[in-house]
């Protein structure tokens, strides 16, 4: 037996007294009210501590995702909010940070390696192996062709100036460190990050 009652009417009934709330217990619950007794949507979410990726205040954020973390189960981020414990942000986020979820799930996110051939007006999807092999070959060929071991004065310089690299100040310290370690030891000097601009 189902009585059609809207959610709003149901709560009115609830406010009217014990009699009506016991009606609900007896099975007179409206369809929409069933949703209201559903578990809080964050209860089964995985909570992950993180920091906002935009400016340098470094506000604390809590990221909520679905998925049990087991192998081959994709986690899906569905909610991001401020971390109330954070001593600087104390749970607040600004208009930028409030939109973090739309950045994570942006339709502009890249999903596959792609190559645009010389003169072409479109992308072609390639595998990671194909993309990385191609890049490694480009690096080696140019380095071997243009690496300078000694300058005109006979001094050792061991540098390579014909390929350059811009690193990302939105990436982690660990990504920055490994990038520096690799790039510098190829002999590269045309190397900067956003701090330059």
């Amino acid at each position, binding site marked *: 037996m189902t009585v059609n009652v809207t959610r709003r009417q149901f709560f009115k009934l609830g406010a009217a007294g014990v009699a009506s709330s016991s009606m609900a217990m007896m099975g007179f619950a409206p369809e929409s009210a069933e949703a209201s007794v559903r578990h809080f949507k964050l209860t089964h979410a995985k909570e*992950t501590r*993180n*920091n*906002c990726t*935009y*400016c*340098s*205040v470094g*506000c604390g954020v809590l990221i909520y995702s679905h*998925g049990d973390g087991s192998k081959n189960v994709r986690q899906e*981020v569905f909610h*991001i909010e401020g971390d109330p414990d954070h*001593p*600087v942000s104390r749970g*607040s986020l600004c208009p*930028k940070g409030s*939109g973090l979820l*739309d*950045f*994570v799930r942006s339709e502009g*996110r*890249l*999903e*596959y*390696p792609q*190559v*645009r051939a*010389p*003169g072409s*007006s479109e992308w072609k999807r390639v595998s990671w192996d194909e993309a*990385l092999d*191609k890049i*490694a070959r*480009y690096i080696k060929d*140019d*380095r071997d062709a243009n690496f300078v071991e000694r300058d005109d*004065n006979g001094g*050792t*310089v*061991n540098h390579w100036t014909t*390929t*350059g690299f811009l690193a*990302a*100040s*939105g990436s*982690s*310290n*660990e990504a*920055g460190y*490994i*990038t520096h370690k*690799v790039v*510098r030891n190829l*002999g590269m*000097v045309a*190397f*900067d990050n*956003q701090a*330059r*601009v």
Partner: protein
Amino acid sequence: MTNHWVDIRNANMILSMGGNSAEAHPVGFRWVTEAIEHNKAKLICIDPRYTRTCAVADYKAFIRTGTDITFLGGLIHYLITTDQIQREYVLHYTDASLLVREDYGFEDGIFTGYNPDNHSYDDKSSWMYELGDDGYALRDMSLQHPRCVYQLMREHYSRYDIDTVSSICGMPREHIEHIWSEIGKMAVPHQTMTILYALGWTQHSIGSQIIRTAAMVQLLLGNMGMPGGGINALRGHSNIQGLTDLGLLSQLLPGYMSLANAKEQDYSAYIQKRAKQPILEGEVSYWKNYEKFHVSLMKSWFGDAATEDNNWCFDWLPKLSKPLYDVLDTFERMHKGELTGYFCQGFNPLASFPNRQKVTEGLSRLKYLVVMDPLNTETSEFWKNYGEYNDVDSSQIQTEVIRLPTTCFAEDDGSITNSARWLQWHWAAAQGPGEARPDTRIMGELFIRIRDLYREEGGVFPDPILNLDWDYDIPEAPSSEELAQEYNGRALVDLTDDNGNVTRRAGELLSSFSEMTADGRTASGCWIFSGAWTQDGNQMARRDNSDPYGTGNTLGWAWAWPANRRVLYNRASADTQGRPWGKEKAFVWWSSEQGRWVGADIPDFPVTSDPALGQGPFIMQPEGVGHFFAGQSMVDGPFPEHYEPFESPIDNNPLHPNNPLAKNNPAGRIYDEDRKALGTREEFPHAATTYRLTEHFHFWTKHARLNAVVQPEQFVEISHQLAEEVGVVAGDWVRVSSNRGFIKAVAVVTKRMQPLRIGDRDVHHVGIPIHWGFTGVAKKGYLINALTPVVGDANTQTPEYKSFIVKVEKA
């Protein structure tokens, strides 16, 4: 930041200049609000526009863009002539008393040693203290000697009187007088002003010197090292501080060490030059330990291959044949077709670099371009025609472009360093979309492939590649934990103290850079990050937000470099005898009972150095004191001087009207071709400045629907007077052009912009937000760097995005 976000609440006065933190760092700005509400602090806001920060300021004034040195130099003049300085601080904690060499001079805008042919100060030898026979600088504690720094500074800024300042800055006298007199009140020892700035100071051809002028003001007022004081750079990106600390800049190594130049062939001379010895007797001069940090880096990179016999692989590091291979140099060479390949890792230079046309032409001359990014950036599609927004012919562009999808912050583990130097650890919440991979893995995969090619085929100078230490569990994907422990550093053998007791077992993580040695017994990839991941675990992941002294200093939250110190130079928060300058400013002080420095912060000082020894608080400086006189550390002069922007709306530098060499920064960074691309004020009469909006972050958030909804369409801001002059009303489309390109945008006509009276005429400003482009979910717009000039700051090479000239007309 010398201080940190929460510490702003300890300020009695806040000067916001060269930034608009209410708009760009809103959550950090809450601590400004906190200071106003609970510490009775006054907020002063000076900007070319009436900004959101101005809207809540107690005192506000408009200033012509690019004239901040004039305003601050005038303030220095005012503080000195009215004797509103923190005298004991100035005498003991600054170089005011040191004597400068007799041959140092400054004439009509030019310092000694200038070579006009090279546009540079080729001979900086006179920019130095006079040294005694013992090698230490001479000083006059009475501050009366005509060549002491104090007197030279007084004389240098005597030209910056209030009428001159008013005329150059376009600021009415009464505004200036009022603000200066308010700031002067902060000279008392127990009150502090903090200064907050951002790219509104850095993006000028005189940017570094603007910041120096501010630091000089803070030294005069005794505000450096104080809670609620300091010079606080509010940095742009979430980890721009970290990447700077890690040295990802053309001339640097991690931890602010630097590459050798080609003339530095001798290893010990290289070290000696950087291991600065004290130039006042008994000072700490902490950089004297340079070799310990350098050798530890080399052990981290090359392991057993780095030995004393091969100078720790000194020759394996690239040496510089010219001072800079920065982005201005790189795009100049790219434009000439001298580059083969280019990598953009999370960087969108087509949108971010000056003179977009030059960037497009440069990228078109590459053989290959690799883009690693979470987003579909404009740079990755520079070859694709988007009509007027990107008017290119794909068939004519022969660059092969390889685009690799990366994960974003929500999908990787690691630390980022905020503006306050806090390294905060974060965890991945999910995998990236599709086949996206973390940057750490991409670099690992690439390196392994390159190393394999060198192993199989041989090649030019393979030594640093074949010997690069790569002891990661999964070589193709080094983990963030492994990398963090590597930059923290570890002991390679048992370390012992003077008595032979083992202080650190081989293989253990170091607790601090103070454990490092110059003989190859320790390794560390970034000495200033040492202490971030110790034997006690990951210090960056700590979450204790307690504040036992009530100063807002949460030493148990995350970890700050160096050594978890939260306020740099904090020894200066106590007087010469080690007592706090004021009860309410007690922060770090000397405890004679304990025989050590104690307080709310980790002392930025040798912890048992008795005040009676008189060591100065600025331990990284060879004199132990703060610098009014920059010596040889800047390329464009030991005292900041006002020079006009390279594109200026006025004809000469009012301070040096008859010396064309001194119109713009004589050592500013500009190439001949780019100089030809500068416009004239007759053709482009309006001063332009660029900025960010609170709803957007650079060129990222136009990809995020929420942000695109709240701020969907490109606009520029102009005053009612300018709107009337060019015949537009609010909502009309305008065309804004410079000598390099144009954009079209909706005109927002507002009282927030006002014409300023400069000399005998009005100068209009145009405000240009930066956030639109031709990819993303927001409405398409024009990359505003179509307009900007390729001119760099003399010291940092940061482009002059905040001051250039344009013409506004009805579209």
